[in-house]
Every structure is written in structure tokens, then in C-alpha cells.
């Protein structure tokens, strides 16, 4: 993961503290080895190389894909871990149903969706019904944060941050809730909001970071333009994996449907539109004061 990971704990001098932190960091390496789509040797890529039949996968990969597909189902595909356009460019331009080679589509005309991902929880297999690539980048990073936090259970207080995703437990060194700034989507260097958190994860997806060096974007999977209605999407949830997936989902769903989705899931969030109008869940204000 070419992302800076920061771990902060209270009581770092305690016996075993260093080992616990190293184990926590180890999860980022483990997730990277299994879930990246940029390494041909990753478990994810090996899975994507074998469409059309059930492939036994590790518990880790299974759980991440299971969660991604579940969020896709719950959002009607607003969040969708499958990537089709990339495949077209890399030569998977054969119509899987007919076997007829089609001209390489200029853009994402193929309609690959999460529905092509078939999970078997009993056998712990994943079958890709048609050739596709899964992009687990963001939620896998959230999952690594969650697993790292699990390794730090011996500390009364801890914070794990990676690429703008953050999860905290307990109180900070000053004995207060952790203060977390939400970057303003338009005014560089300023904050849109500051929230006080304890025992929660927070993630912000913003349009100003849609295209980065490694090609990560927030897709609008169904060709909808609704993602244009949001400049910044912030979600506070019990787990970083959920916060990450929900922030992306709410971003794509737009201000109204996005907030409705977050409230239905029982989490809090705030969406800022390009006109800097704010939409928030009913409970969000208790974090800002």
C-alpha cells in the first residue's frame, strides 16, 4: 500500500508495545498482498484470472469481497467493486455469453456489475461470472485499519490512520476525545468541520481526490451523474471498512439518497455539495458541538 500509515497509542513504552504495533502494521502488508489489483501475484489478481468457476480463497479475501458485494446490493449498485472499463483496455473484450470477440469499447460500455460475483459462504469460494476486475482498494484499506486496531486492544487508547481513513479508541493524550478535522473540499488548507470522536472510524471521500497517481477514482457505476451532486462525503461508523464503503456509496447516491442510506444503516455522516451546501444525518451534530 503506497499509503502512509500512522499508529498512535498511549502507553507505547509498555512491555510488548512495540511488538503489538508491528503486528498491527503487518496487517497492512497482509491486506496488500491479498487484495491489491496492481500486483499480478496478489490473491485478488489470481482470482480475477480465473473467471467462470468457483475459486477457493482465503478468509480475508472472502470477507472483504463479501462485504463489498453486500454494500453493492444495499445501494442498488451505487457502490460497486467491479471494474469493467479497465478490462476492455487490457484485452478482455470477448462477449462472455456468446464467445464472440467484440471491438474494444472506447469507454465503459460493458455493463459489468457486482451481480457477476457469486459467493459461496459454505465452501468459501468466489466465482466471477464473467471476466472482471475487483477494485477493493479503499475498503481493503479500511479493513486493514480495523484489523490493526484489533491488535492494539491492550492499549487503553489508540489511533490508526491510513490515507485519510482513521479509527480511534479511547481518549487522546490530553484525556479528551480525539479531534478530527474534515478537509474542506474547495478551500485548500482549511477544514470544513472538526469532529470529536472516541471509539469510531471516520472516512471522507472527496471529488478533489478523484483521480490520483495510482488511478483511484470514485466511479459512477451506472453511468449516473448523481455523483456530481457531492463534493465531499464524510461517514462516521463503528468500523473503518464500513465508513470507507459508505462514504463512497453516499457520494455516488447524492445528497438526499446518500443521507437516507446512511440513516438506514445507523451511521452518521455529512455531505457537502459543490455549492457548499451541507446535508447531514440527524445525529451528526453531536460530534461537532
Amino acid at each position, binding site marked *: 500500500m503506497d499509503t502512509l500509515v500512522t499508529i498512535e497509542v498511549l502507553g507505547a513504552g509498555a512491555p510488548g508495545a*512495540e511488538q503489538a504495533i508491528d*503486528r498491527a502494521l*503487518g496487517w497492512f*502488508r*497482509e491486506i496488500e498482498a491479498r487484495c491489491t489489483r496492481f500486483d499480478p501475484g496478489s490473491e485478488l489478481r489470481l482470482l480475477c484470472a480465473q473467471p467462470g468457476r468457483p475459486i477457493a480463497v482465503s*478468509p480475508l479475501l472472502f470477507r472483504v469481497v463479501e*462485504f463489498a458485494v453486500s454494500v453493492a446490493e444495499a445501494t442498488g449498485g451505487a457502490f460497486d467493486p467491479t471494474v469493467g472499463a479497465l478490462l476492455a483496455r487490457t484485452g478482455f473484450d470477448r462477449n462472455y455469453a456468446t464467445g464472440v470477440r467484440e471491438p474494444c469499447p472506447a469507454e465503459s460500455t460493458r455493463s459489468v456489475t457486482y451481480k457477476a460475483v457469486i459467493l459461496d459462504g459454505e465452501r468459501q469460494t468466489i466465482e466471477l461470472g464473467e471476466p472482471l476486475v475487483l477494485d477493493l482498494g479503499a475498503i481493503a484499506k479500511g479493513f486493514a485499519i480495523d*484489523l490493526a486496531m484489533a491488535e492494539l486492544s491492550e492499549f487503553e487508547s489508540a489511533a490508526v490512520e491510513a490515507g485519510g481513513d482513521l479509527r480511534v479508541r479511547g481518549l487522546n493524550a490530553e484525556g479528551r476525545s480525539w479531534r478530527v478535522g474534515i478537509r474542506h473540499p474547495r478551500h485548500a488548507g482549511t477544514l470544513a468541520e472538526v469532529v470529536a470522536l472516541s471509539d469510531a472510524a471516520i472516512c471522507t471521500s472527496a471529488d478533489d481526490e478523484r483521480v490520483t497517481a495510482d488511478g483511484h477514482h470514485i466511479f459512477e457505476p451506472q453511468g449516473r451523474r448523481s455523483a456530481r451532486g457531492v463534493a465531499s462525503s464524510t461517514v462516521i461508523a463503528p468500523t473503518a471498512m*464500513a465508513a470507507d464503503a459508505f462514504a463512497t456509496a453516499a457520494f455516488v447516491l447524492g445528497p438526499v439518497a446518500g443521507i437516507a442510506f446512511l440513516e438506514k444503516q445507523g451511521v452518521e455522516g455529512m455531505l457537502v455539495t459543490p455549492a457548499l451546501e451541507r446535508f447531514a444525518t440527524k445525529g451528526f451534530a453531536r460530534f461537532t458541538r
Partner: protein
Amino acid sequence: MGLIALSSAAIASVYAVGYVNSSADESAVPSAVVAAAATAPQVRANPDVAGRQPAAAPSASAVGASYRDGTYVATGTSRHGNIEATVVVTNGQVVSAQISNCQTRYPCSKISSLPPQVVARQSVTVNRVSGSTDSSNAYLAAVGSALAKAKAAA
């Protein structure tokens, strides 16, 4: 199951399994399984050290146990010296996996977190100790060899 509960369940189940990627000076030994194979010639297993009756084995396997009861001793090597592990199997379960002889240049107290993990997870798939990768590998190789003997005897 709601999505939040699903994500929490995912964390709990994956954390329980642990990870195999070691950190720090991960050298030529990618996993304990490989290390166990490499040190196999040095294994000495003493299945009946504890004096248990071999006849107890069938009843143990009847409840789904995969290891035969007994005490198994094996050695794992590292460039810093050898580690001997003594694995005790009772009712088909690993009940202890102590470091019974530490001949490494560094104190084995550095990897004292590993034996409880082997017992808790009933396998060598544990979180290694960063900075003590060689010692971790040697210990896990020893346990892997001992468990291989316990399995073969079942």
C-alpha cells in the same frame, strides 16, 4: 445481518485466523510450512514421552480430533541457533507448545507471545514477532514438525 454487523464479523473472523506475512527482516523463509520441511531431518519426535496409552487415540479421533495424544518434541533451526519446542496433545487438542530449549543468540522471551497463540489457534498460523523473525520461524518450524508427527500418528 446489517452491514455494520457484517463488517464487525469480518474483522473478528479474520483476526482470529491471523496473518502469515511476517515483517522486518523477512528473508528466505516465507512461511512456517516451508521452514518445517527444511528442518525435517533434524526432527526427533517422542510420541510416548508422557507415557499415555496409545489405545486412547481412537476415541479422540472419534470426536473429530486431528492430532494423536502425546508429547512431541521437535527442533527448528535459524542462523542464530536452534529452538526446541515441546507440543502436548490431549484429547486431540494442542494444550501446550512450550519452548523447551532455546539455543538462539537472542533470548526466547522475545517470542514468548507465540506459544499461547499456537494453543489458541491450534495451528502455526500465528502473528509473528517483528524484529524476531528468525526466532519466530525457528519456533514455528519446530511446532510445525511436531504437529506433523502428531498428525501422522493420528
